[in-house]
């Protein structure tokens, strides 16, 4: 009936948590501090709100160099100093894909993260980051801990999402080594 169609239309699909989209704007003059550059853009907590946001923001291939998109759970800031991140780390992948191929992989990553299928135990993911860089774009999955066992499972899933078949391309770095220029990954998949 018309009524139940209308009711179905109104139903929103809740996500497991609220998420915040952040954007890092590239610096264009020296007076800009980090707090001027990293800003929350908006939040969403249903599938419908996610799509609305996604449809209204530039796609990765449209972003200027040195931009980052960050999508983080609740009020976690996309910085390793945040309490929720301080004992964790990130799965990092430098992507060779260009143009709309990055757009597609970024979308798949976002959907796997907000749909909670990348972490079956729902205990590790704090957020996900896309960095647009001249030397190669980067995807990073930020985790709450640096425990090898759950992270290895998540890393394997992340590779499926990114459609990676080769070995040794995904690297895990604990945030405790974030200041070390010569830091080596603690897990490689």
């Amino acid at each position, binding site marked *: 009936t018309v009524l139940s169609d209308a009711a179905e239309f109104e139903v929103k*699909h*809740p*996500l*497991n948590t609220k998420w915040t989209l952040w*954007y890092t*704007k*590239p610096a*264009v003059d020296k007076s800009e501090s980090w707090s001027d550059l990293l800003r929350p*853009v*908006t939040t969403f907590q249903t*599938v*419908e709100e*996610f*799509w*609305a*946001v996604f*449809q*209204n*923001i*530039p796609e990765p291939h*449209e*972003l*200027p*160099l040195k*931009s980052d998109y960050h999508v983080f759970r609740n009020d976690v800031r996309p910085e390793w100093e945040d309490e929720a991140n301080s004992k964790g780390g990130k799965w990092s992948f430098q992507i060779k894909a260009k143009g709309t191929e990055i757009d597609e992989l970024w979308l*798949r990553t976002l*959907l*796997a993260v*907000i*749909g*909670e*299928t990348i972490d079956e135990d*729902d205990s590790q993911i704090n957020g996900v980051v896309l960095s647009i860089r001249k030397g190669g774009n980067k995807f990073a999955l930020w985790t709450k801990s640096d425990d090898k066992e759950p992270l290895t499972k998540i890393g394997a899933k992340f590779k499926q*999402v990114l459609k990676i078949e080769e070995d040794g391309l995904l690297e895990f770095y604990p945030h405790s080594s974030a200041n070390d220029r010569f830091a080596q990954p603690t897990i490689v998949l």
Partner: protein
Amino acid sequence: MPRYTIEELLQLKPEEIQPVNFDAVEFKALIEKVKQLQALREEEYQHGHGHFNR
């Protein structure tokens, strides 16, 4: 806990662009401005380089 596969989420994607609760026009304008400034810098840099090489 709500959980959705990538395929399920794709099926829930609306055909038409939906309104949002933030100023998306302003956000896009900001990004365009940065791109223009970066392009300008790049052009100036190339120009400066030309002189050094002469």
